[in-house]
């Protein structure tokens, strides 16, 4: 019997909002699938397109999270993150990769429930999309 496909998800979080939201999910004991590996940055504006592209060589999906617009601890970092993710999505479309494999979500420090839900939904969606053809191994 074939084993169920377990997608691999890499998530970039910002120290002030989304990482704290992920912590709150833990404090509240909200359960979500263990498919995600979180990389902590100070700001979503730090996310360089090459991080996303390298991540897509090793994982089936990439999640970029940050503060809600207007709440960025560094004023405008998340605005830049938004623009970059849009550009990378367009690039992915051009090489024929499903743009749903890259997601951008704003998660505040109080949205533990949202963090858990976003992970669950993305893992479910990646299960449907199947293994990332660009991924090694």
């Amino acid at each position, binding site marked *: 019997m074939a084993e169920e496909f377990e997608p691999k998800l890499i998530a970039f979080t910002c120290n002030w*909002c989304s990482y*704290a939201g992920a912590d*709150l999910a833990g*404090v*509240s004991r909200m359960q979500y699938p263990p498919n995600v590996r979180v990389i902590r940055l100070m700001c979503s504006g730090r996310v360089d397109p090459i991080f996303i592209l390298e991540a897509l060589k090793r994982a089936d999906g990439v999640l970029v999270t940050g503060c809600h617009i207007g*709440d960025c601890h560094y004023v405008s970092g998340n605005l830049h993150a938004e623009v970059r993710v849009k550009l990378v999505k367009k690039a992915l479309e051009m090489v024929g990769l499903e743009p749903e494999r890259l997601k951008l979500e704003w998660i*505040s*420090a*109080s*949205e*533990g*429930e949202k963090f858990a839900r976003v992970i669950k939904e993305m893992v479910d969606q990646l299960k449907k999309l199947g293994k990332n053809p660009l991924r090694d191994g």
Partner: protein
Amino acid sequence: MSSIEEEQEEQEKQEKQQSVLVLGGGVCGIQVALDLADMGFKVYLVEKKPSIGGHMAQLDKTFPTLDCSACILTPKMVDVARHPNIELLTYSEVLAVSRASKSFEVTILKKSRYVNEDKCTGCGICAQYCPIEVPNEFDQGIGIRKAIYVPFPQAIPLIYTIDKENCIKCGLCERMCEAEAIDHNQQPMKITVTVGSIVVAVGFQLFDAKNKQEYGYGRYDNVITGLDFERLVNAAGPTGGHLARLSDAKIPKKIAFIQCVGSRDEKSGNLNCSRVCCMYAIKQAILAKEHIPDADIHVFYMDIRAYGKGFEEFYTRAKEEFNVKFVRGAVSEIVEIPETKNLIVRVEDTETGELLEKEFDMVVLSVGLTPPSDSEAIENILGISKGEDGFFSSPDPQIFTVDTNIGGIFIAGTAEGPKDIPDSVAQASAAAMKASVALVQLTQEEKHVEK
């Protein structure tokens, strides 16, 4: 006494005068403590509850920005915990204050937590195993906590406390604690400190809505106060952020907010405006709409006081973007329909002159702010005077807002009178400024006298 000893005594005296006592660990007390500590003074922050954070920690979002309250408060709480100049004394109260030359000698009682503060790591295993459940005060009695508890997950300090009244001494917590931090025989401790200046930031208490009998709070399940509402919409609250009726957990579709409950009201004994309720009701109306987009929301008011930065825009948003209906009218009575537990609100629409009776699933009473419960005790201990409204007051509240009738003692925040968070924070820094000037002048005087 030798000159070296005299010098040492003098240095100790100087160091003592460079310290400040801050009473109250809400957002105001926290700001005073941080400002003074950053300036280099030693701060004793005394808080009667097991954790700092005050009422702001109970809020979901704050007006007019709809910032998450805990998100902006907890970093400041952590700063307090970590600051090398701040000694945090929680679950403690001031017993007595006496004048010692130009300083104050303060006796503080550290109540027994029955948990060793140095050993507890805040891991929480004890609470998981504790068999006793009691209503959680932090959740306005809507949620529960154990007999060994922290009031909320981000509590500072993150140290458990045993509520001896409800503890049955089963010993399970002691057995499960791997840090061996439980001590059922712990005794309260008295500490004496000498400080050069005191800042009183003991906050407020909400008007007890039960005193407005015609509104049915305490008798009707679905009549709640503004703070009850905050805990219901809070994602970390007793319902996980689901705005539901307390009677049957159903989602309310018609919600009424009643303003000026306990304020501008002769019968309640308070003729003054509580300054924040217009805005917090508008905020809660918007939050209710965000949670339940098809809800029908009415706000029954006398005047809408949307005076601060961004307030008027917030009020306009509520009307135009969220379709909240504002009705200028005095609510005479609320009556419950026993079968559905819905409520009938009887109101005179002062603009049309009509007498209305409207049915709602849920009614939120925007209760006002009153002086804190221990204000009389503090008045007796410190000797500072109150104004006519019962809040602590400066002899000249217009120009010298944070002063009191006693030199070296200052007031700030809602203890001085109702105000919102930005005004409390600004006043906190103002009080810190005055306290620091008082301390500097104290040392200068000493130096001058010596010469």
